[in-house]
């Protein structure tokens, strides 16, 4: 790392390992730091989830001394998982692979890239520091609706809530800078021949994600700033008795936080759109349609925010209901694209493909159960119940987290030069898949039978006991499934099989360089004549251009 043939004088003769990591501007090292940092917060957020699940395993207040602590636990669980795990995890994967996939030496602004990363652990520490303050950490949910998050004897009054605001502004700024960096990198630093419609889908999803980040994140910053002013400087934005409007916060908050759902899921879609073609030895079915569907989701994503507010009595229901239904269409298009990529392929069931199939099967449920909430009258019944908890976890865990692991198993050989163990990977998948469904499927039943979210206790005669116990058991299974994964990473780092440049017979440019890639990534690039340059180099340019439209006919043998 520390030397480069072209610039011997510019690099210090020796940089110690730790110093090098702390000061690096190499997108690959920063990407890996993003992944490690995010994974640590995944474990922290997971511990809060286990605390919540343990409390809910049976009726009564057992684990926590009072409900305020419970409120802190689920508020911090959600905040950590969303802002410090999923979003930066996917940004980290993007950070590692996007410059490689477009044949660039680094991100457009390497030093800003480092700044974006270092804001994350700082934000995370500030957030968790809330526990050390009198009054504890933020306890008004990850949404922190005012007036609850502002005042009231039993609200979330302490400095923990202020730390929550500052941490989120910091993390948001990190996202915005990262988004700008991705956009400039993708627009300006693609290798010759890599036109927009030859970019890997992963790059496309990062592009659309970055547009969402750059345009939506500042809006939540404004909401947080107003919340901070209300709390600390006597402001009256959201306090009705002082002339403010409580629902205003929800509008501004969800204007960001709904697009943020796509920020959390689009890159994961990108990951599996890379994995599925490679392991079925076929191109992605409907590449351009997939891109338009991604852009469509991004655009529609700005017009559906108020479907989180159907029960407020303060939004125009038909419009937001219609838009929410419509966003199912491009999502459905993608689902069919993926399935038809598998269809008539030659599937190799390596761990990345298994996790990608986990994504497909689980995200499908997350899409279908979301359609219930798009229907306003049904949402009146389901809003703020465990049904919504089930839905969001099928999207963000069943979708994004399975996608994240697909990506980690897929690119680990590129990042480290060594393969992860396949058998441990499959053990990980099986336990996590079963645990996930045990945890979150019963939440549908709890929600439809009337269990509200965010309650620390429930009546023992409400009929919720068995499902809650099952969900808690499932939660611990998910926790257990992390052990083979962590073990796998540690063992494979030392003793894993040597990967070579291209262990999976990949399609995209990252497989054209060594594993791990050298500083500045490429000595030379293959010709880029399609969205699968490495495939073309392996099989010859004509191999990928069988007959185009033959899904039904079946006469598409390659040359």
């Amino acid at each position: 790392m520390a030397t480069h043939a072209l610039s011997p004088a510019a690099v210090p003769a020796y940089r110690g390992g730790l110093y090098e990591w702390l000061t690096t501007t190499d997108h690959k090292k920063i990407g890996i730091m993003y992944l490690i940092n995010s994974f640590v917060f995944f474990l922290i957020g997971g511990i809060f989830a286990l605390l919540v699940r343990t409390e809910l395993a049976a009726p009564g207040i057992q684990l926590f001394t009072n409900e305020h602590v419970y409120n802190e636990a689920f508020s911090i669980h959600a905040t950590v998982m969303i802002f410090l795990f999923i979003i930066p995890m996917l940004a980290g994967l993007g950070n590692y692979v996007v410059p490689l996939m477009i044949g660039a030496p680094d991100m457009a602004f390497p030093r800003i890239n480092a700044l974006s990363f270092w804001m994350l652990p700082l934000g995370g520490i500030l957030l968790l520091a809330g526990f050390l303050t009198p009054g504890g950490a933020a306890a008004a949910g990850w949404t922190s609706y005012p007036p609850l998050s502002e005042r009231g004897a039993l609200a979330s009054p302490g400095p923990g809530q202020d730390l929550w605001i500052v941490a989120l502004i910091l993390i948001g700024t990190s996202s915005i800078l990262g988004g700008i960096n991705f956009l400039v990198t993708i627009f300006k630093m693609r290798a010759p021949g890599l036109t927009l419609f030859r970019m890997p889908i992963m790059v496309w999803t990062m592009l659309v994600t970055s547009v969402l980040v750059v345009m939506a994140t500042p809006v939540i910053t404004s909401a947080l700033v107003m919340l901070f002013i209300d709390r600390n400087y006597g402001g009256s934005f959201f306090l009705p008795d002082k002339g403010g409007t409580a629902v205003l916060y929800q509008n501004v908050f969800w204007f960001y936080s709904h697009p943020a759902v796509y920020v959390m899921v689009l890159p994961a879609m990108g990951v599996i759109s890379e994995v599925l073609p490679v392991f079925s030895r076929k191109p992605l079915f409907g590449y351009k349609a997939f891109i338009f569907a991604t852009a469509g989701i991004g655009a529609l994503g700005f017009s559906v925010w108020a479907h989180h507010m159907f029960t407020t009595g303060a939004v125009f229901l038909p419009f937001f209901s219609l838009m929410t239904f419509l966003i199912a269409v491009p999502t459905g298009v993608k689902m069919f694209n993926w399935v038809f990529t598998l269809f008539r392929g030659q599937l190799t069931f390596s761990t990345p493909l298994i996790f990608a199939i986990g994504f497909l099967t689980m995200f499908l449920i997350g899409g279908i159960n979301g359609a219930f909430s798009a229907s306003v009258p049904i949402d009146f019944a389901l809003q703020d119940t465990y049904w919504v908890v089930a839905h969001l976890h099928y999207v963000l865990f069943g979708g994004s987290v399975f996608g994240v692991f697909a990506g980690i198993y897929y690119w680990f050989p590129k990042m480290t030069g060594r393969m992860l163990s396949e058998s441990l990977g499959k053990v990980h998948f099986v336990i996590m898949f079963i645990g996930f469904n045990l945890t979150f499927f019963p939440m549908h039943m709890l929600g439809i039978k009337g269990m509200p979210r965010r309650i620390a206790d429930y009546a023992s005669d409400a009929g919720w006991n068995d499902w809650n116990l099952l969900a808690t058991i499932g939660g611990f299974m998910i926790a257990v499934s992390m052990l083979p994964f962590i073990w796998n990473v540690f063992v494979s780092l030392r003793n894993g099989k040597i990967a070579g440049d291209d262990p999976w017979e990949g399609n995209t440019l990252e497989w054209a360089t060594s594993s791990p890639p050298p500083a500045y990534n490429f000595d030379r690039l293959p010709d880029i004549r399609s969205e699968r340059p490495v495939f073309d180099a392996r099989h010859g340019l004509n191999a990928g251009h069988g007959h185009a439209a033959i899904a039904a006919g079946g006469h598409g043998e390659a040359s």
Partner: protein
Amino acid sequence: MSTSPRKRPASEALVAGGVVVLLIAIVGIIFFTGAGSELYPPKPATVQAKEVASLYDLVFAIAVAIFVAVEGLIIWSILRYRRRPTDVDLPPQTHGNNFVEVLWTLIPTVIVLYLFAISWQTLNSVDYTSVANGQKPDVQIHVLAGQFQWQFEYLDANGKVVATQTKPLGEGGGMAVPVGKKVYVTLSSGDVIHAWYVPRFLFKRDVIPGQTNNFEFTVDPAEVGQTFRGQCAELCGTGHNAMQFQVVAMTQADYDAWLAKLVEAANATPVPPPSGAPVLALDAKNIAYDNRALEVPANAPFVIAFKNDDPSTITHDVDLRAADGTTVVANQDPIAGGTTAQYSYPALPAGTYQFFCSVHPGVAAMTGTLTVK
């Protein structure tokens, strides 16, 4: 030579097809026997809820059909198209097919537009209120939500409050409504956002400070005598879960009697405390007692002159428990903010007791120690 999918052994197709059929069978068994009932809403108790439930049934049927179709296709593909050692050549490099792509864009569009249309239709009847259409509802109730209790104000035809029910739960408590009558509800909050939610009504609506929401419902006459569980559904603080209420469905005659009794109780002169009993003063403000250590003489009844200085939506009381914190010594009815009450307590043997506010259990500032000696 290339291995086209058609040359694969038929056994693979049989296995794959078999598993897909199995999936369909399992899903079918789950939903056409009782096992699937867990995924359906509870029995709807209002006219409006019945419409929502039938909409749910329809959406659910479509959802299951889509689930089986797509999940079946995925399973078929992964079982049927495994790469075999003989697969050296590439499979057909299919880049797309305009026809099927247009098809799977149009068909979902039609499905979601249909779902939207029927949802909108149901919404119009669920959201219908007499008041918005220039008619008089049969019963008008104004619901006040405050941390962490519900109060129900009963209004006469002119919108004047005739009685307030401050006990949301338990014997004689809850929100009483006549069956088969249009009940118009307005909602307001004095502190944070709450949500009025009754699972068997398949309905909730947020209670937002600074904004009065409303809705209307008609309880199914078949539900007469039933009590429905209700609960706050929007996180409102430490006592969120304790913020429960009941809706009691009565015949019109029973309802009239119940309301008359409530009015009478509101107008009755309070029972004077036993003369000579010691009177302790206790105030509550900002969800805190002003005194958390009280003292009374043993073996004599006593009175607490209780004053609630919080906003009108926030209720308090002073209940008494033995030192263990669970054995009930005395329960009192909560009073609304801005009012006072004379709570009488029986004679107690010497010892220490706990007093607390039943609306704010677990709040340290609303628990205290009563020393009897």
